[in-house]
């Protein structure tokens, strides 16, 4: 991978709740001369840059300080107080996560006072935390549980609430809120407001009555939640989790009359190993295929097949739009926005509904697959589509909402019956007694077979753009993309910077338009001399910045095509991925994804033989043709910000 530079949320952010102060003090500490200060932590001396938090300084000398409200992706809050330490000369204990070192300090991290305070903090949290660990989604992966163990909690010092006080909010297809388990660390609030800038969740009430809620206490399904699930990934307890449909999937598997097929997206493979104790970044593609067959799925398909299909549909759509704008001089909605991230799509529907015409009408790969399975696949295999159950393994919580969109039934049936997250699938595999990492590898089932590297990289931010460019460049210029980019790696669109804008001058065009799209675009001559401007944004906070720029007529408004992903890092950082998450973990997953691409035999969507066969056998009027419009394209709903 090229340089990986994570753009941390919000250096130039509007003020938000929870202390939007950067953790540098004085504010220009990074520029101060020398810039280092020595700290003594439990007798060990360490030099750190001025402004480093005590927590990070302690990490440097291997001193573990427990944290709870702290998260590497989020602003400092300093509210749980479990990380308190004793700083010599200070009357009170200091929160290590929020205390910047600006002068030489002596710090003690496990004095009587510190141990007492931490234990009390944990005891106080447990006193209002309702729920048994056994029946919790986060059992064995819960930060509160871990703390209780670390601090030797052997009884409920300040009592323990036994009865549920707050009904679960299960209104959303994607996110379940079980506020009985909330310990008010406010990570979800900081995620929703600061990291994603959606702003659905906020603390309401005061004192002991404080709780996290939504606008007017409405159900999550009735507010502007985009279902990205980033709050789930950062919740330390089981207070937030995805709406799990794995029991229904088991029921379908158990039903002999049902033909249960599963499609798996690229990101879960790059991450599911984490649920089995592996380091992040170990791809499990082949093992996962084996596991899914062992678990009882009739067929295991690769969502990348429809990722490639998406590229052809969306790429053709882009060429048509460009043709409309540049040749026919028609008013055309440009830039075209990608539509494969359902979190992003709902974000746009809520916050920028007037830009819905810019969204590609192509369905997401998940939904295309569902439609193809219940039509072409069903016909080809002589199976009644009503007996087919399509399951999608996704890194995403928003995919659950997407598959339940009422318009997603162009096959005559619900295109995708169930969306499962990586976490839920790991659980199903465990329940089936399968130890994933030790399985033999196997391939994907026909007729879709193994997809291309372009499909794989859909999982990382910039991946859809790179895949689209590989195809569009090759079709338009008639040159092999490898000639223009080493190993066909368009590295300028890769990486974790929040927003990237890339310009690609088109100096030559192919003499002939490939037959498959010729009826839409008779000639590419109009693109000669055009500089193709594309951009990539991941995380809705960055998407917001791009949308504001477009609205203001800035450089992004001149783009032709923009890839938006709802989640930081793209799908590999999705709300259905294993917990925990951090910039480092996401980088490791990205590495696995790009390695899979590099190892693919076919790396360009338009060379995917299965996709080409689909166009020959079934979608005979080609990309963006009548039949593909019916099955593979969709429409959107202007939702607006003001909900009922």
């Amino acid at each position, binding site marked *: 991978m090229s340089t990986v530079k994570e753009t941390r949320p919000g250096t130039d952010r509007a*003020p938000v709740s929870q202390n939007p102060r950067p953790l540098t*003090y004085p504010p220009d500490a990074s520029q101060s001369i020398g810039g280092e200060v020595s700290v003594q932590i439990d007798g060990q001396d360490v030099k750190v840059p001025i402004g480093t938090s005590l927590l990070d300084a302690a990490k440097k000398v291997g001193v573990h300080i427990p944290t709870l409200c702290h998260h590497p992706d989020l602003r400092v809050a300093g509210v749980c107080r479990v990380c308190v330490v004793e700083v010599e000369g200070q009357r009170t204990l200091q929160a290590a996560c929020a205390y910047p070192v600006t002068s030489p300090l002596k710090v003690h991290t496990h004095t009587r006072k510190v141990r007492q305070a931490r234990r009390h*903090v944990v005891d106080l949290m447990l006193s209002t935390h309702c729920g048994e660990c056994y029946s919790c989604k986060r059992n064995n992966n819960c930060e509160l549980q871990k703390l209780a163990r670390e601090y030797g909690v052997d009884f409920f010092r300040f009592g323990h609430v036994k009865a549920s006080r707050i009904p679960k909010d299960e209104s959303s297809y994607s996110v379940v809120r079980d506020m009985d388990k909330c310990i008010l660390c406010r990570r979800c609030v900081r995620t929703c407001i600061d990291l994603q800038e959606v702003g659905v969740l906020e603390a309401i009430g005061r004192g002991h009555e404080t709780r996290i809620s939504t606008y007017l206490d409405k159900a999550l399904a009735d507010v502007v939640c985009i279902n990205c699930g980033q709050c789930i990934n950062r919740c330390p307890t089981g207070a937030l989790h995805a709406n799990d449909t794995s029991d229904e999937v088991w029921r379908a598997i158990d039903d002999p009359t049902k033909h249960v097929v599963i499609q798996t997206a690229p990101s879960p493979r790059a991450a599911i190993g984490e649920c089995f104790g592996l380091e992040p970044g170990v791809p499990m593609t082949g093992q996962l295929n084996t596991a899914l067959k062992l678990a009882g799925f009739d067929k295991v398909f690769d969502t990348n097949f429809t990722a490639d299909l998406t590229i052809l549909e969306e790429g053709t759509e882009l060429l048509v739009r460009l043709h409309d704008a540049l040749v026919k001089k028609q008013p055309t909605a440009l830039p075209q926005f990608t539509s494969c991230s359902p979190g992003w799509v709902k974000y746009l529907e809520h916050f920028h509904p007037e830009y819905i015409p810019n969204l590609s009408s192509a369905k997401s790969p998940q939904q295309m697959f569902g439609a193809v399975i219940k039509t072409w696949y069903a016909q080809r295999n002589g199976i009644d589509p009503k007996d087919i159950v399509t399951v999608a393994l996704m890194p995403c919580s928003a995919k659950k909402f997407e598959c339940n969109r009422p318009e997603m039934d162009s096959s005559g049936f619900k295109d995708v019956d169930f969306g499962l997250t990586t976490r839920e699938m790991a659980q199903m595999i465990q329940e089936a007694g399968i130890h994933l990492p030790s399985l033999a590898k196997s391939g994907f089932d026909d007729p879709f077979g193994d997809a291309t590297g372009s499909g794989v990289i859909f999982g990382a931010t910039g991946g859809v753009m790179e895949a689209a460019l590989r195809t569009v460049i090759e079709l338009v210029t008639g040159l092999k993309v490898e000639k223009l980019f080493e190993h066909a790696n368009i590295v300028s669109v890769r990486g974790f910077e929040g927003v990237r804008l890339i310009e690609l001058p088109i100096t030559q065009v192919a003499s002939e338009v490939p037959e498959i799209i010729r009826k839409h675009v008779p000639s590419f001559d109009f693109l000669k001399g055009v500089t193709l401007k594309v951009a990539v944004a991941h995380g809705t906070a960055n998407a917001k910045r791009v949308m504001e720029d477009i609205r203001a007529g800035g450089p992004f408004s001149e783009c032709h095509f923009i890839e938006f992903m709802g989640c930081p890092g793209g799908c590999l950082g999705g709300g259905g991925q294993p917990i925990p998450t951090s910039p480092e973990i996401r980088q490791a997953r990205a590495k696995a994804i790009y390695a899979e691409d590099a190892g693919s035999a076919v790396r360009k969507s338009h060379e995917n033989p299965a996709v080409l066969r689909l166009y020959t056998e079934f979608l005979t009027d080609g990309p963006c043709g009548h039949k593909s419009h019916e099955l593979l394209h969709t429409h959107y709903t202007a939702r607006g910000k003001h909900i009922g």
Partner: protein
Amino acid sequence: MTVIDSRRTPLTFDSIVPGTGLAVALKLSRADLIATVAASNLRGRGGAGFPTATKWNLAAAAKVAEGECKFVVCNADEGEPGTFKDRVLLTEYAPLVFEGMTIAARAVGAKRGILYLRGEYVYLRPALDAELARRRKDGVLGAAIGGVAGFDFDVEIRMGAGAYVCGEETALIESLEGQRGEPRNRPPFPVDTGFRNQPTVVNNVETLAAVTAILAKGPEFFRKLGSERSAGFKLFSVSGDCDAPGVYEFPLGLTLRELLEQAGGTDAKAVQVGGASGVCVPAAQFGRRIAFEDVATGGSIIVFGPHRDMLAVAKNFMEFFCEESCGQCTPCREGNAKLLEGIRMLERGECSTAYLRELRLLGETMQLASKCGLGQSSPNAFLSIVEHFPDEVLGRSLAAAGGTR
């Protein structure tokens, strides 16, 4: 009940001619101006007692972002139970308060001032706005104040909305910025990163009025009053079981007994010094001095007569804190609720001594580990009452158990 905000002693502020302090300040360089305040040994009147000149020096040295400016905020969110002296100042001495803000602005180089007014004092707003208008007309607010080129300063009034915690300076700033009133992490401190992330001086109403007096009468006058580490005169809001509740002015350093003699409360069994967040001093300790080095107070003195039920007193305070905790940090949010629950158990005679010991340790944890001064001081009343009135607190346990264990 007597009218409580009647003045019981003459106030030094009566002798200050408005405008005198500012006139002196304008003749001084900014460094000399801060040095003058430093020479008075003035410490913040809100309760914490931070040296005013030190705060100003830090703000004066702090850098401002481009297109921004420094701020002087007058903390008029007088919310400590039993405090009503700022109301008197704002009602009768508003010119001295605004003058103090202007002097502070001169000292630190601030361009904008904000009076953060307690929500319940909204009735004072028309008069305060009128005073601001008058000052603009008189040229002591606005551009080139007192004819000093470049000394531009104006003041606006912002209303609080009833949250006690917004008296904490960083919560006040959050509130000013339109956020939930929740304290920030410190450091960075407001003198460096305050309102809109710019250097901000937050001073109490009385501190600012005292600044005007110090400039008008000279720092010597102020420093000579009071004790060594607690210079100057101070206003006290005296309430509760005494003959003459009201607003008093005394030099700091007087004993509680002396104060009670003035207020006619010598038969008191305890005095709560510093409001709900202060400590409860029993009669045996009435020789203690009201000063930063002994029992500190922002001015609230609540007298408890012989008939008062001290557990009920503790309960009243804890109910207050349960409601007023911002709910942000665990020790304060949950801790106050546990202490209140403990008091209810004590009332019913259901609290074991072992659990009471645990609650006292919890109180210590709250003092040590809470994020802001609210949680750090909220257990004070409970802890001091449990310490000084064990018979009243534990008696019920014994009574409930039939007098035996």
